[in-house]
């Protein structure tokens, strides 16, 4: 494997890792809020979170590009604060990936939180547990498996991202050139052997991750046991 390919793998893992950590940090309170709220606002937020599931990634990427471009509000703020451009940077990829993979983390967490019976939280409250304590000592332990699922899906989905990255990151080696983009490059320049190598790697990775996830799911549900 060439140095450029190893660079792309490293960059992909770094992006997916950073994105997953941020997604769990942001997605947990958001999922909790959504699981305990009814009404129009909650439905609207829920719809927004789910948008990346159906929107073509290029649409998302296009608007993100407008949002992060040097002339935009966020872009120029970033430029002033850091002295470098936000669009076509690794940071832009992280922002894009967080938005793009949000439903994959929020939805399993939200479902898990909704399954925690209100009755148990009431019991915890009468035993002296404040709301955050109730969340930490009852909701979190009861949703542990869903955190594993959410983090795995968020990670895997970020690894497989292409359209958004191409729109807001371009193809800068060591900065924004992740595996899926490198693969596209090879195909465009008709380097099918190299393309095969990366494509097979991605297939193997995705299959292995999902297989491990579903197997542990079945075990915990006692299917076939």
């Amino acid at each position: 494997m060439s140095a450029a390919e190893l660079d792309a793998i490293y960059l992909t893992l770094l992006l997916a890792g950073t994105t997953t950590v941020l997604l769990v940090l942001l997605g947990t309170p958001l999922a909790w809020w959504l699981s305990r709220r009814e009404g129009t606002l909650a439905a609207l937020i829920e719809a927004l979170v789910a948008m990346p599931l159906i929107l073509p990634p290029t649409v998302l990427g296009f608007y993100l590009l407008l949002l992060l471009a040097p002339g935009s509000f966020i872009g120029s703020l970033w430029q002033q604060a850091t002295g470098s451009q936000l669009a076509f940077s690794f940071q832009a990829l992280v922002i894009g990936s967080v938005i793009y993979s949000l439903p994959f983390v929020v939805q399993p967490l939200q479902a898990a939180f909704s399954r925690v019976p209100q009755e148990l939280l009431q019991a915890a409250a009468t035993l002296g547990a404040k709301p955050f304590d109730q969340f930490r000592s009852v909701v979190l332990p009861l949703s542990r498996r869903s955190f594993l699922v959410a983090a795995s899906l968020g990670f895997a989905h970020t690894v497989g991202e292409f359209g958004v990255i191409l729109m807001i990151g371009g193809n800068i080696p060591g900065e924004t050139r992740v595996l899926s983009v490198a693969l596209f490059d090879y195909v465009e320049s008709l380097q099918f052997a190299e393309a095969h190598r990366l494509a097979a790697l991605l297939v193997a990775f995705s299959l292995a991750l999902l297989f491990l996830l579903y197997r542990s799911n079945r075990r915990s549900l006692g299917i076939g046991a």
Partner: protein
Amino acid sequence: MTMLELKLHCRGADGFSLALEESLSLEGVTAIYGPSGSGKTTLLECIAGLRKPEGDSTINFAAQCWQRRGYSLPSWQRRVGYVFQNGRLFPHLDVSGNLDFASRRRGPVQALAQDQVVSWLGLEHLLQRMPDTLSAGQRQRVAIARALLSAPRLLLLDEPLANLDSASRQQCLHYLRQVIEHAKIPMLYVSHDIEEVSQFADRMLILSEGRVREHGSMLELSSRIDTRLAQEEKAAAILLTQLRGQDDYGLSELALEGQSLWVNQLKAQKGEYFRIRIPARDVSICRTLPVDSSILNILPVTIVEIEARHDSPVLLRLALGQQYLLARITRKSAATLKLAVGDRVYAQIKSAALLSEIASQA
């Protein structure tokens, strides 16, 4: 005496509303009794802060305000123990984890010792078990222990035995009595089973359709014939007796207002107090003392009240010293015997009625 002062108004589904204004004594056990749908659970939830009553409601616990317009003390600051009908144990924690959950959060207050509570409820061998491996009765015992270990100032029990079969209910009741006897925590005990609450309640609040119908001493209420309780099939008087001794026939002699009452042998010390429950349908009336009856318990009483309704049996309230018996007889018997208030008659108590009696310390 510290009181729980309630002025509650709470709307529920289907036009149901709970409205009451009562002061509940915070000593001993107060039974909240009523048919299902009468608002018993709603009342407990309002007291625990799990349900918001209407704005004009107030709750004062001794000198502390728990609820008033625009203010509600959160549940986690009320220090109320709540035993739910289905236990609500934390499924991810074993029994001792569930107990620790309570004791870790109670703060620096004086509390019952964990070993003590565990032994009252017979949980010694269950500490490492997970909740889903426990029987329903065991789960309720853990739930009671957990509530006690949170050092509550008031314990609310919402039909804790309702989902148990009769064997585990008896067993659970035995443990519960230990707690009532030793823990010295005021309790509100919700039940729709009069036999259950009559075993240990000091006072009773009768709810129906969201309104308080009666509130008073358990012994006093159970011997009245003008309450809804008296109209029920299970209507029974509760009397306080003292164990006098045993005989050679396997019976125990209880002292009741200077008379003797024979019951199946009680394993207890002489001089101990027992509450007994005599169902109205098991008491019959004679004008003269029957001399050759197989019934052992025949007591001289005075008729103090007669409730005769059209189409229903006649209810009698019978004075025996300071206490009262209830008797339910047919209208035909009442007419034949020409019973009237003030008559001195004999009450025959079928021994069978006493077989199932409860020997609970008063």
